[in-house]
């Protein structure tokens, strides 16, 4: 993966260090040449003043004797007076600096020590001035250091600023990532184009075009499912009428094939209605009808609607609640969750079993539980049973395979969470609905 930030910093930071080093080198060079020229000038003036003195009076001037500290530390030039190749006087005897035959500046090295020399022409006494190169270098480096310090301080500082600039420059990207993360198949909103860097605009425009195509595709798919479910109702109705006609002809004598035909039609009916319910539920925008919902009357209705099926299968449905509770949510979505979980529990409980509904409330959270005495679900399949048209092995053939998918899709619409687990106390499935309280 390439990171824009790393890429930018990887290029810009070495560039910074390099140009800082170059700036330091150039300033050293300039100090070198200007300080050398200045010191050369001083040596030249010194030599000239001795030469003038000698020309005015033949007596040799007395030279102040220098020690190593003067020469090396202070950079005091050594003065030598020569005549006919003979050293007449010297302010520092130590270095064996011979007289340069030609006048002018020289750089020499004697016994590993570098010197700068200026030799004035003989008239007839020659004046030769010498200065330690080590001193000169020290002065130049010292001066160069002064100018290098601000650069050295500025480099890390501006690198940090650069990092910040890159960070802030890439912030619109982070915002975009958040905007994209919030999308799902039910809310494909276009990405915001305000405050977006110009370089990203073409990309965003293309993404927005893609999103709107996607939205149209989802919409038309949902419409298709709804239409298909509606269209299926007419032939289904025709089948029902034919079966009823047969039933009228046979009377109430239980003909096994007719009973099976009727059961098949009922199952088809349920499947069509569940498909329609799911498609409709997914088409409505989530969270659009949030209000305070009293759970007890809602569960009363849910249980009342399902009791005929439960009684037909001889299943005892019971309810227990500590106190009346209300939650904030979408009443239709909640109804759909409870309907499908109870339906699922009743259908998967063998005849003679029981389904217990319990309502628990704690600070700000409400828990609704549906516990059945059916076979439960193998732990590895607890997630898969939410898949559309999933059928567990050995399941009764009366379900549509859509109930739990509908419950989960309804839960997503109303900030509820459904949890399926096997009961700890006895065989059976425990479906839990976690709801935010009404607080």
């Amino acid at each position, binding site marked *: 993966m390439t990171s824009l930030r790393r890429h930018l910093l990887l290029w810009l930071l070495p560039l910074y260090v390099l140009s800082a080093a170059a700036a330091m080198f150039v300033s050293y060079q300039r100090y070198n040449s200007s300080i050398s020229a200045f010191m050369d000038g001083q040596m030249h003036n010194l030599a000239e003043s001795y030469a003038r003195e000698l020309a005015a009076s033949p007596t040799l001037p007395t030279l102040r004797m220098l020690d190593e500290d003067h020469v090396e530390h202070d950079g005091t030039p050594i003065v030598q007076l020569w005549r006919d190749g003979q050293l007449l006087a010297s302010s520092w005897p130590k270095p064996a600096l011979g007289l340069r035959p030609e006048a002018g500046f020289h750089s020499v090295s004697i016994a590993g020590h570098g010197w700068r020399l200026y030799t004035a022409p003989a008239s007839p006494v020659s004046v030769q001035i010498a200065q330690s190169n080590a001193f000169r270098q020290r002065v130049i480096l010292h001066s160069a250091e002064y100018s290098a310090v601000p650069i050295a301080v500025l480099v890390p500082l501006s690198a940090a600023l650069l990092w910040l600039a890159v960070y802030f420059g890439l912030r619109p990207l982070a915002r975009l990532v958040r905007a994209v993360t919030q999308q799902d198949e039910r809310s494909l909103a276009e990405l915001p184009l305000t405050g977006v860097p110009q370089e990203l605009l073409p990309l965003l425009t293309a993404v927005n075009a893609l999103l709107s195509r996607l939205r149209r595709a989802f919409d038309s798919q949902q419409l298709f499912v709804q239409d298909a479910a*509606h*269209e299926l*109702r*007419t*032939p*289904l*109705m*025709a089948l*029902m*009428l*034919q079966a*009823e*006609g047969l039933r*009228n002809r046979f009377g109430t004598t239980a003909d096994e094939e007719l009973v099976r035909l009727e059961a098949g039609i009922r199952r088809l*009916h349920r499947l069509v209605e569940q498909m329609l319910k799911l498609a409709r539920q997914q088409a409505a925008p989530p969270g659009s009808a949030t209000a305070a919902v009293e759970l*007890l009357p809602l*569960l*009363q*209705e849910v*249980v*009342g*609607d399902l*009791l*005929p099926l439960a*009684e*037909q299968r001889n299943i*005892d*449905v*019971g*309810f*227990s*609640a500590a106190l009346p509770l209300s939650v904030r949510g979408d009443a239709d979505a909640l109804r759909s969750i409870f309907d499908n979980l109870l339906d699922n529990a009743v259908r998967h409980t063998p005849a003679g079993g029981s389904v217990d*509904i319990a309502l628990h409330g704690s600070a700000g959270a409400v828990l609704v539980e549906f516990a059945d005495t059916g076979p439960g679900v193998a732990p590895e399949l607890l997630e898969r049973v939410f898949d559309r048209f999933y059928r567990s092995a050995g399941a009764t053939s009366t379900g549509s395979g859509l109930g739990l998918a509908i419950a989960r899709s309804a839960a997503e619409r109303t900030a509820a969470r459904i949890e399926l687990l096997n009961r700890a106390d006895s065989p059976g499935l425990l479906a839990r609905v976690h709801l935010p309280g009404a607080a």
Partner: protein
Amino acid sequence: MRILLIEDDEMIGQGLIAALRVAGLAVDWVRDGLAGEAALAAGSYAAALLDLRLPRRSGLEVLRTVRGRGDRTPILVVTARDGIDDRVAGLELGADDYLVKPFEARELLARIRAVIRRRDGHAQSLIGGSLLQLDLNTREVVSGGERAALSAREFALLHALLERPGAILSRRQLEQRIYGWEEAVSSNAVEVIIHGLRKRLGAHVIRNVRGLGWRVPHGSA
């Protein structure tokens, strides 16, 4: 009694005719909207079944035309669409009832009889399901074809339960229906009344739902 069926689907048409004839009704069948309008203008029918999606003229348009010329024939709209908007549109245009496909012939017959009765001005005095009914005029209970008188509290309790057969009512809800706001209610008053009713009418007519309350089963279950 003669019923007009306006339906373009062959199989459904035949199925409905068979079911209605079994119930002793005579049926005329037309297959498009225009023919439906013409038949309604010509004959006098006890009721009409109108599919909404028809060739040549839609069911809603037929409804508008028929009601527009003052025809008061009871019309039951039959459709595969059951959105709230569809229902409202149908009922606002003057449909007497609204049936969503698929439905059973039994259901259709009950609805046809209900709209005819309503149109004939017979106020509905019997409420309840097939197991237990309440005659609101005589304040009697009808069970297995036999009538029995009720005390005021028994009547109030059964009235509450039979308004929506199958629905569960909690003790609190029943108490509110039996007693006035100010009246003191003993803790087991509802149980006592229900116990008495069960003894007279049979234990199966009022069922307890553990933790939630009581109900009268809707059907013959």
